[in-house]
């Protein structure tokens, strides 16, 4: 096996709102090709951590490195050029509601590539086909179901073939079968494009099925209390809270 190549390195990160500290002393590394799970109970700051990683919210202290670049100390231009390599799937999908699915996916392509209109249309068709929405180009987000919105948003997140895909609770609000299909899709993407994937979730089925690395945020300790392969964490839980979380609190 080749040496792990760090894609995201987080050091001594502290986050909070105003004077309220949500989490402190977060230190972990996401390697290329990882399916990295950020897990923890509701309200522990998973989504906030994700926002810090993608550049939507500034941490109160500590560093986030994307490659070798200290993300939050870098200039806005540098940050934007790094962000261009991200794809992000929001909890609600966050498709731009005034545009059709095709326009949603085309926008990043128009922004950052020199492709012509015809070529963009072809790429859009491919991305929609990859998520099982071929033929839905001219639908507006309000005209499709929740699961379809998630998949369309995934197609948009993949538009520029990102190096890292971030997911905020991808399976929230999906039925078990759709959730499973989304998991399969995520694994497929990693296998075929070697995309690094960071997922915020508390769906245990997904965590064990797709995660190969993780960090556990403990809402009581206000810091991370475990990290590593979730299946190994289940086999040998480092502390009772992790055990409780990974076994749904069953005795």
């Amino acid at each position, binding site marked *: 096996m080749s040496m792990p190549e760090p894609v995201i390195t987080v050091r001594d990160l502290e986050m909070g709102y105003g004077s309220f500290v949500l989490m402190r002393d977060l230190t972990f590394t996401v390697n290329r090709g990882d399916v990295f799970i950020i897990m923890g109970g509701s309200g522990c700051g998973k989504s906030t951590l994700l926002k810090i990683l993608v550049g939507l919210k500034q941490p109160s202290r500590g560093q986030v490195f994307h490659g070798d670049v200290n993300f939050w100390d870098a200039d806005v231009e540098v940050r934007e050029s790094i*962000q261009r390599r991200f794809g992000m799937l929001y*909890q609600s999908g966050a498709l*731009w509601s005034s545009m059709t699915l095709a326009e949603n996916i085309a926008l990043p392509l128009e922004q950052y590539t020199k492709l012509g209109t015809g070529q963009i249309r072809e790429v859009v068709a491919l991305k929609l086909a990859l998520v099982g929405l071929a033929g839905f180009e001219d639908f507006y987000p309000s005209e499709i179901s929740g699961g379809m919105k998630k998949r369309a948003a995934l197609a948009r997140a993949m538009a520029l073939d990102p190096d890292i895909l971030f997911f905020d609770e991808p399976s929230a609000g999906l039925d078990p079968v759709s959730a499973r299909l989304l998991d399969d899709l995520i694994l497929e993407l990693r296998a075929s494009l070697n995309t690094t994937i960071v997922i915020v979730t508390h769906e245990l089925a997904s965590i064990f099925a797709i995660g190969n690395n993780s960090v556990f945020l403990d809402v009581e300790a206000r810091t991370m209390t475990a990290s590593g392969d979730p299946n190994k964490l289940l086999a040998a839980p480092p502390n009772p809270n992790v055990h409780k979380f990974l076994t749904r609190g069953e005795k």
Partner: protein
Amino acid sequence: MSTREQSVPLDSRIRIDRYGGDTLAIRLSGDWKLDQGLPSTAPVIREIESRQPVRGVILEDVGIRGWDSGLLTFLIKVVDFCSTAGIPVTADALPEGVRRLLALARAVPARAGARKESGREPFLPRVGSQALSVWRSTRETVDFLGETAIAFARLLRGKATFRRSDLSLLLQECGSKALPIVSLISLLVGLILGFVGAIQLRMFGAEVFVADIVAIAMVRVMGAIMTGIIMAGRTGAAFAAQIGTMQVNEEIDALKTMGISPVEFLVLPRLIALIIMMPLLCAYADLMGILGGFVVGVGMLGINPVEYLHRTQEALTLTTFWIGLFHSLVFGVLVALASCLRGMQCGRSASDVGAAATRAVVTSIVAIIVATAIITFLCEVLGL
């Protein structure tokens, strides 16, 4: 039973008896449903307190016919009081379901500090937090204006990103679609000015000057103000609500993570649309206002139509017209900036969107009136 003291009736559904030396039995019977109303726990608690020493409380079902959350709410208060007072409670003689729900409700203790402090904050902290929020809002406004200026500069260099189709749609939305309401309002304002003027001028037999009054008032300032206020209420509220909803749906976050500036993508087209359309609407409103005055002058005062138009032409200068257009251009910029700013500042809930729309209209109208005062003063100084 010989050890029992005499029972005290409280609510007819509750009886409290003493067992042995220091144990109280609270006996419940009858219907315990929410729609029957809940007995107050105060008499029960008073009983417990007055019958010291109490070293144990037994809750007992002696013929409860039906129960729902009503019973639970009552019991939880009693149990909470007892546990605070350090009195052990035995609930074995309650129905199975009640016991389980009682245990469930008390399984997770209330998180300390999670409940919001009620009551008034002391004066100084209130002043402090007000000052901080004013400071934050000022900083946001300055940030926003700066970003918009940078975006505008990028637009002039041809580097700004937004969709041309969005701009066309917005031009239509705040241009041609606003024509009916602008027509109606300006025509009526022209009529009103004509009426009011006519009544005064009639006293001096100078009716013909109605044409001057209407023309100058409409073209110099009223046309612009009326269009400005219409656009603030109509378009400004819409802008704030659109952008606010995008904020709620994380659509703005999605733009940011894609490295697309929301200011360029959302604010610029709206700003351009209003910059282009406001002066046009204003010129149109001027015309409609003059028409309103014409109707009063010719129809009510019997002025010769040609004479009326001639007076209007005499009264108006190109400077007056330009001043009017300048007003409307400034108002266009103000309405666009105020409403987009309020939209961008919108919180993450449905009521925040409503508040954003309201604030957009209020800010726009205040800005319009203040700007009018400033421009009028400057024109005075410049002798225009």
